[in-house]
């Protein structure tokens, strides 16, 4: 009697243990997304990644996020979960986001090329040439407007541009959701990144949130310049400090628009860059803002990691950093096409910098390079499509 009970008990216990064993062995396979925040972020108790960096030791006037060496950055976009960020990473590198599975976000925002693509203007599906160049995504967490003409105010609004542009990724909302919902692994990953949702289906907002989460995690704030800014005088060479002084002086006036610590004041400026021969004049911000006084105006880009993202300006108008710098020294409006009446920015003038000073400026800008938080490119993505991004500058 007792022997029988004992036997049953033993068998059932063994069963329970083996079930538990398989359950837990199963578990890690499902937990596919990282549960750690990327570097530059601290995970909170409610599983959100909050931005952390040395600039949080400082303040800025009127909380503007502009200033000098020891000034606070603008408010960052953060608070996504580690899983959302990691899911966004897969989506970012997955060509399934384009109409024909040929182009991913990373094709033009390539981590090997400063999150730009090394081209004057980018290629869309089928190699269609765009009219503007792909901007770097480093530190987009701090930006308030997107695109060269500042026509979007959130990362979510921004990504609708390339996703649905017939010449870029050329997909549609329906096509995109159908593709993703047809991939079992994505369905599992989205369920993991967005717990407690009502539907089993992937929604477009979840796609946008995950990509925005990944993009906001691209932080570059540990360059040699930053070491200098935080107080280590030896971080920069004499030449580089000389360059910094030219940069912030009111002769060159670089820092008036490329203002530290982000190296952009996030304003629109008309500077009158020449288009490549034969190309029509780009009206820039005039179009989205319906304002002729903004004709030829573009958003001031951040200069962080600028040495990694040649060629320069809105359409790769200059091949090298030196040429781009020299443009400002060649005289106010020297390249404005005949018949164009541009409201050139008042800081565009004739600084008469010497060749040495231009060299020093370039030296200084090269100190703004930091890729220590470069995210991993996934070796494979849930769609099974190949992840093919260039490792070398194509030009």
């Amino acid at each position, binding site marked *: 009697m007792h022997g029988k009970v004992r036997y049953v008990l033993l068998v059932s216990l063994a069963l329970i243990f083996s079930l538990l064993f398989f359950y837990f062995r199963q578990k890690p396979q499902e937990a596919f997304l990282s549960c750690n925040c990327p570097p*530059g972020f601290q995970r909170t108790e409610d599983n959100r990644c909050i931005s952390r960096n*040395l600039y949080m030791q*400082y303040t800025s006037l009127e909380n503007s996020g502009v200033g000098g060496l020891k000034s606070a950055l603008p408010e960052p976009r953060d608070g996504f979960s580690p899983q959302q960020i990691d899911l966004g990473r897969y989506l970012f590198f997955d060509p399934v986001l384009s109409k024909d599975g040929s182009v991913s976000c990373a094709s033009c925002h390539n981590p090997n090329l400063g999150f730009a693509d090394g081209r004057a203007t980018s290629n869309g599906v089928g190699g269609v040439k765009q009219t503007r160049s792909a901007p770097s995504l480093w530190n987009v967490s701090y930006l308030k407007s997107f695109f060269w003409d500042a026509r979007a105010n959130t990362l979510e609004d921004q990504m609708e541009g390339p996703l649905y542009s017939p010449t870029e990724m050329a997909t549609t909302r329906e096509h995109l959701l159908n593709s993703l919902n047809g991939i079992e692994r994505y369905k599992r990953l989205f369920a993991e990144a967005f717990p407690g949702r009502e539907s089993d289906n992937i929604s477009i907002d979840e796609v946008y949130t995950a990509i925005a989460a990944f993009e906001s995690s691209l932080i570059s704030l540990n360059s040699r310049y930053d070491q200098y800014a935080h107080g280590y005088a030896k971080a920069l060479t004499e030449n580089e400090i000389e360059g910094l002084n030219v940069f912030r002086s009111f*002769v060159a006036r670089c820092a008036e628009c490329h203002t530290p610590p982000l190296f952009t004041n996030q304003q629109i400026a008309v500077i009158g860059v020449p288009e490549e021969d034969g190309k029509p004049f780009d009206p820039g911000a005039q179009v989205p803002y319906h304002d002729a006084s903004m004709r030829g105006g573009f958003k001031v880009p951040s200069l962080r990691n600028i040495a990694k993202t040649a060629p320069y300006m809105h359409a790769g108008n200059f091949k090298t950093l030196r040429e781009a710098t020299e443009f400002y020294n060649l005289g106010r409006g020297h390249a404005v096409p005949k018949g164009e009446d541009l409201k050139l920015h008042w800081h565009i003038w004739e600084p008469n910098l010497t060749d040495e000073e231009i060299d020093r400026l370039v030296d200084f800008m090269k100190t703004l390079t930091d890729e220590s938080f470069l995210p991993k490119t996934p070796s494979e993505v849930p769609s099974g499509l190949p992840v093919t991004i260039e490792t070398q500058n194509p030009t």
Partner: protein
Amino acid sequence: MKFKWILLALILFAAGMWAGRSLFPKVVSSIPAPTRVQFASQTDSTGAVVPLSNEILEVKDGGSILDAVKKANPGDLIRVYPGTYKETVYIDKDNISFQGIIIDGEWPILDGEKELNDAFLYSGNGIQIENFKIMNYKGNGIMGQAGNNFVIRNNWVIDAGVYGIFPEFGQNGLIEHNILTGIEDAAIYVGMCDNIDVRHNEVYGNVAGIEIENSRHALVENNYAHGNTGGILAFITPGLPIKTAYDIIIRNNFVVDNNHENFGAPGSIVSGIPPGTGIIIMAADEVTIENNIITGNNNTGIAITDLSMGANLSKDPESEPNPDRIVILDNYLEANGKNPVGELKILMKAKMLDRAPDIVAVGGGTGSCIRNRDRYNTYGLGDYGQCEVTDTKDITTFLLDKPVAPRQITMEEKGNLTFYGVCAGCHAYDVRMIGPPVNTIQAIYKDNPQGIADFIAAPTHKREGYPEMPPQNYLSEETRLAVANYMLKITQE
């Protein structure tokens, strides 16, 4: 006869002098050194005033002020003796004071020889610069980027380029007793600042005398602005990252004969200033103009305009273009508007007038007022009401009671920001990234944060299969210890 009397008087005088000198020997008064207390605005990281380090570094003719800056620690005073110094002095440290020593009328001179960009360029807080003669620079005499609690006093700035004295992104600053001339933009330019007093300065022969731009809580008082293209300006300039200008008092100034030809650089905003304008308010709000003596400005005494005056500027949808809540209290205005130019001339021609009034307002704006309007010739002030306020005497300064303190941050927070902002690139809590996991490090350095702090300053290759750690010696000792302590406390990520 007469001669005798004179001789007698002389003899008596000489005798008296001799007697006086013997009885009352001349006392040579001892003049104390300038009080050091004035240089003690520094704060430590808790915000409390710290004692001066009491270092005085002396720079004499032939020496370099910049070399002294490199040696100086926060709290130090750099004394510069008469001589000519051809250099750009940049200061990326806090609480450094510069004091020129003037001997027999000889000043320390900073001469840029039209080759150097700036004389003083600072980013630190608590910078004080006084008693220098600054000339022949191409950019600025004194430029500050984001330094708070500054004092710029008793300097001569002569043909120093674009701006004479230009603090930007700073709070709580005093600009007083300076003399500036020959500047091709604004001689004193307060750009994107808060809580600034500009007083007792003389500005002449510049394009703009004093400009308060996209700034708040600024007092412009007791200045003498004469012979500039425009005397005193309060502007909102569109396209800047800080968009507002308000709470500005322009009081007790002489604004006289500002009729200089405009020699601003083509394309610059001030190149649009009509010569002969005493005070210009462009788009700024809550500007009070009180008790100024404004005479002989040939375009007009006070011009108040919206952003349409800046016709050569791109629009900025985020800049509010109208001057609102302008308060014109009692002022003395006379003999202005003798020879209006530009738009005002056209406006007056249309009214069959050769002269312009003392005060002109064009463009939009609401809530403005003027006191005793019948005292002046005015144009465009139809919407202005009668002011309820009579004076601003309750406001003696916009400077803060105590220096702006740095952001309060504990050592634990410092450790936290450093760990996640820097170290997390290679170290996670319990998984291997580039370097070993934090829990492994904790096991080795239990109770030994100093060991970590020392190791990361000069790492050696320790671990098979791991790359050698790059030195983190750019972090201060304090920061290294803070992050070491923090790392030992982490329990999860």
